Each structure stands twice: as structure tokens, then as C-alpha cells.
């Protein structure tokens, strides 16, 4: 069965190995270039001393702005494996009639499918792991300049999530292949199913682990005096670097929430309800109003994920997709061994 699996899939394996080698080489090269550039700009020292590194970060961004869109295309790798390797796995046997050949040798269909799945899944999971770890290494000097590693074009291709995605895409491909028994429709369903499962994750990913909470009582002045600032910027500025802010809420001392939109406008209107913007959009702050602002404090609460939550979030998301993969693999095995009409 091992020989048969190799002989039947050596073309796919060669393509996968070629892609892995090329992508790895490119990532090593990019990672080295990014490291030396960051070193040249003094970024590592600057970031660890919590100083203002915006200039260096801007230069990193300028220099490497083409990289994240390119590496971001790696999110398609599991999908391609699912469509072009897993989706034909069972259906092409049905299409060629060779299931009647394969499943009437002295090898039980259960062993046929489990051997194939174990070999193909473990090889591709290993490849995804290599790419995931390599991507984490390559992108670590870049991520501060591109919105941190929680940025989803960076997040999805790093760490263990790519492994879980790979196994999920393969399981989806095999299950649809066994159920539909036709390769092209199975590929189409794999494409749609994978997108349908992965896209929503971007909207609820932050809620996969409990947030860290930053809360502080600050004078209103501290917010309004920041030039061009908005209430969010205070929270973000005081958080550790690389934090992923989910929500900022501000309440007054009585516990009433204050709208945080529109720069400081919400804050002004809360404390000075009579203030009205004039025709030019400026607000004239009366001295009475100024006194209220000067004497008031607000309570600020920020929900966020510090960069230390990275692996926790990755683990939860991976577990979720590994669970889905396990269900789909079970379906595929049951269909193949269930001796449904052939």
C-alpha cells in the first residue's frame, strides 16, 4: 500500500516538493534581508527600549512593502493541496473504474484509505509546519512595520495555523471526493467550503481567547491635549508593542459611556452638551466648559491581545480546524468502507 500510494501520487509529491523548496529559499532570503535592514536601522534595540521607532518602522515599511502581499498568497497553499491532491483522491478511482480494482485486491478498503490518508496527510502537514515556522522567522523582523503579527495576512501563514488549515483542506477535499465521486465538482466544493470556513474566522478570531484588559482613570485633559489625537490613541500608546486592540470604551466618573468616534468631539459634547459646532465645524469651548473639562476624569478600558497571546490564539484556532478535519476524515473513511453502491 505504501508503494501504491507513492506510485499513484508521486507527480503531486514532486510538485509539492518543488514548491516547498522554492518558497523556503525565497523566505530564507527575505528573512535575512529583513534582519540586516532592521539591524541597520537599529530597530531591535529601539523596539525593546519602547522608544519612538516610527521613523525606522516607516523605512522598513517603505523598503519591504511588496513582501506581505506576496507571502500572504501562501494562505492559498492548503487550499491548493485540498483541491489538487485531496479532492481527486477517491473520485478519480470512481471515474476510472479503478475502485473496483483497488478495493478487490487483498487489502481491505479500510487499510487502503487509512494508509493513503496517513501518508499524504503527514507529509503535507510536515511541509505546512516547515512553511509556518519559516514564515514566522521571516516575518518577525517585518511584522512591527506591518501592523504586528496579528495582521491577518501575516497571522494566517505563521506558526501552527497553516498546519491545521492544511489538514482541514485535505480532509475537506477527501470527504467531498468520497461523497461526490466526481473530481471537478469535488474540487469546486472544496474551494467553496474552504473559503466559507476560513473567511468568518477573521471576524471572530479575536474572541477565541480571553482578552487582556487595560483600564485607567485619566484626566480628560490627557485625552484632549493630545494634538490630533482621539481617545483610542491614548490606550494604544500605553499598551505594550504588538498589541492587538479589540475595543476601547470610555466612561465618565458616573459610569455613563462616552462615544469615542469623531476624534475628541464625542468627549467635548459629553461634558459640554451645549457646545455646537459653527459653520466651519469648529467648536468654541466656553470658559465654563473648559473648567468642567479641566476638572473631570474619565475611565478608559481597552480590551486587547498582547503579543504573548499569539500562540494561545493559534492553538485554539488550530484545535478548532483539526476538530473539523477529524470529522471530515471520519466521513471519508465511512463512505469508502461503507460499500455503498458501486
Amino acid at each position, binding site marked *: *500500500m*505504501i*508503494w*501504491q500510494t507513492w*506510485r*499513484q501520487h508521486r507527480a503531486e509529491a514532486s510538485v509539492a516538493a518543488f514548491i516547498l523548496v522554492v518558497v523556503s529559499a525565497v523566505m530564507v532570503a527575505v528573512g535575512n534581508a529583513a534582519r540586516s535592514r532592521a539591524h541597520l536601522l537599529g530597530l531591535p534595540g529601539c523596539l525593546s527600549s519602547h522608544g519612538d521607532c516610527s521613523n525606522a518602522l516607516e523605512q522598513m515599511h517603505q523598503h519591504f512593502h511588496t513582501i506581505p502581499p506576496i507571502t500572504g498568497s501562501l494562505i492559498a497553499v492548503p487550499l491548493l493541496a485540498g483541491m489538487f491532491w485531496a479532492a481527486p483522491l477517491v473520485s478519480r478511482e470512481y471515474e*476510472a*473504474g*479503478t475502485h*473496483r*480494482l*483497488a*478495493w*478487490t*485486491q*487483498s*487489502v*481491505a*478498503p*479500510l*487499510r487502503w484509505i487509512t494508509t493513503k490518508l496517513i501518508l499524504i496527510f503527514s507529509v503535507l502537514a510536515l511541509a505546512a509546519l516547515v512553511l509556518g515556522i519559516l514564515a514566522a522567522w521571516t516575518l518577525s523582523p517585518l511584522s512591527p512595520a506591518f501592523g504586528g503579527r496579528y495582521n491577518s495576512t501575516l497571522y494566517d501563514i505563521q506558526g501552527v495555523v497553516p498546519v491545521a488549515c492544511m489538514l482541514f483542506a485535505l480532509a475537506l477535499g477527501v470527504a467531498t471526493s468520497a461523497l461526490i465521486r466526481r473530481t471537478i465538482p469535488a474540487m469546486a466544493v472544496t474551494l467553496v467550503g474552504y473559503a466559507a470556513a476560513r473567511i468568518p474566522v477573521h471576524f471572530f478570531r479575536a474572541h477565541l481567547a480571553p482578552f487582556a484588559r487595560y483600564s485607567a482613570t485619566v484626566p480628560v485633559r490627557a485625552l484632549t491635549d493630545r494634538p490630533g489625537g482621539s481617545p483610542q490613541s491614548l490606550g494604544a500608546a500605553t499598551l505594550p508593542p504588538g498589541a492587538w486592540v479589540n475595543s476601547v470604551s470610555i466612561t465618565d466618573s458616573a459610569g455613563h459611556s462616552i462615544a469615542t468616534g469623531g476624534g475628541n468631539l464625542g468627549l467635548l459634547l459629553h461634558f459640554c452638551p451645549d457646545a455646537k459646532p459653527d459653520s466651519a465645524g469648529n467648536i468654541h469651548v466656553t470658559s465654563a466648559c473648559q473648567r468642567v473639562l479641566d476638572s473631570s476624569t474619565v475611565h478608559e478600558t481597552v480590551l486587547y491581545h498582547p503579543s504573548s497571546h499569539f500562540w494561545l490564539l493559534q492553538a485554539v484556532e488550530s484545535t478548532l480546524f483539526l476538530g473539523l478535519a477529524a470529522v471530515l476524515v471520519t466521513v471519508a473513511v465511512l463512505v469508502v*468502507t461503507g*460499500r455503498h*453502491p*458501486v
Partner: protein
Amino acid sequence: MNAAVQVTGAGRRYGDFWALRDCTLSLPSGSITAVVGPNGAGKTTLLNMLVGLLPASEGELRVFGEPPSAKAEFLAQVGFLAQECPLYKEYTVADMLRFGRAMNPRWDDDLARARLAAAKVPLDRRAGKLSGGQRAQVALALAVAKRPQLLLLDEPLAALDPVARRDFLKTLLDSAVATGMTIVLSSHLVGELARFCDHLIVIRDGRLRLVGELDQLVGEHLWVGGTAEQTGRLPSGVEVLSRVRHERHTKLLVRSPEPLLSPELTVGPVDVEELVLAYLESPDLGPDLHDVSIGGLS
């Protein structure tokens, strides 16, 4: 003799449609059986059930006393040559042999190579580029080298030209003689199989029409000729399968368990093809008699 195949009341249903129903038969070990019937009669269903690819909707099947299953121990003793002789197109013939070796613990590589050499099939050619006859020979070599005790072949001759058919049957017969395995093969033609088989199953519209030992079946069936009056006075127990009227003369194909001795009737033997045709044509056996009228007499 031990029954290699024992089927009792087996049937297979797809929704409301019965592909095969009330199938009861017993085939002795070492026998060679032809399953004959038109396309869609239920031959493939029967063979797929015997090899365990298709579960029965009702009834019971036993192959060497065991119900067909997807277990390796069962599969090891049954060889199967599926319809259209499926092979992996991108594999060379040598790869197909390697496949056979990898997938079968009792694989006889020398036997497979000898068969293919005799059939002049090049080992380095891709299966997708083989002729129909070569393809069938490779599929047969795979099935035989597995050393099964029962070999099932589903329409192996369908796509072959007469020479390839003869070669294929020769290879099959040689293997049968050498190994003593039980063989069941289906076909929609009976001609070439007649010399080759010792058992016959005629199947139509999902029902078995005729099952038995070939010589016995041929012996039991007779052409009987005489006037309408004479042929109307047949002894009880004689079953009329078809009737041909020709002016005053009537010719009947009958099944008679006893030898039919009558001074007033002309009695002649029936050949296998006539026999099969009679069972394939008669809409049903027994009361609904198939009536053929010739010569303008209603």
C-alpha cells in the same frame, strides 16, 4: 462436492428498482460457470455482491462458507476482473505487476510474467496505451496471480475482437486447469462460452431464468415436432418454453425431466445457444407461453 458459491434468496434494490431479486444458486468448487443475459439484466450486480463490493438488500450469500465482506482475508481468496478491465492508465504494465505484488500477499509474480509473456504484452508500455486485448490480458494476469480460489469476471469478452477472445479464453482455461479455481464469468453472448463452461446461469430483468449444470440442462431440453394435436398431448411434467407453428406442423422447445419417448413425435436435441435464447426471449416461464406464429396461421 463443497459449494464454492451459495446464494439464497439474494436481491439488491436501488430505491424502488430491484436490480436482482430472488437469486438462489449453488456452484460447486472447481466449476466454471457462465452467467448469460442481456445488458442490464443483473449480471454485474450479482458479481459485485459476490466480491463484496455491493451489500445485498435481502437474502444471503456465501463464498466458501463466508459472507462476502471488505475484509482482507475474504478479498484474498476472491479474484475479480471488473467490467471494462480497469487498470491505472498512467502505470506501465510492470507497475501494474508491482501493484499486484504490493497488494496481495499470495502474489505469484512468475505466473503473472509467464502469462503476459505468452500473451506478448510489453511490460514497459503504459496501461492506457494497450489494446483492448492486451488490457484484458493484464487484468486477467493480475486476477490470476493473486491465486484466488474463486475468480469472478464481469463481461471480460465484451470489448475484444474474435482473436483476442480466443486468446483470452485460452489463458483463462489454462489457469483454471493449472489451479483448479472456481470461475464465474458473465457475458451477453453465449457462443464461445459453451465449450468452456460446465454450469450455466441465464439471467434477465433481475431474475434467474435458468440455473444448472450445462450438460444436464442441454439433456433436459428438446425440440419436439408434430401436428398441433400430437404436440398438445404431452405428458405431464413437460414444460413448453416456445412454440413455432408452421402450417400443420408445430415445433416446441420443451423441458422434460424424463426422456421423452413418443412414436408420433419427432424429438431432437437443442444446442446451448437455442436454449439460452429461449429463456432470454420468453417473457416469463410456465403459463405465459412464448408463442411464435409462422405461415399466416393465427
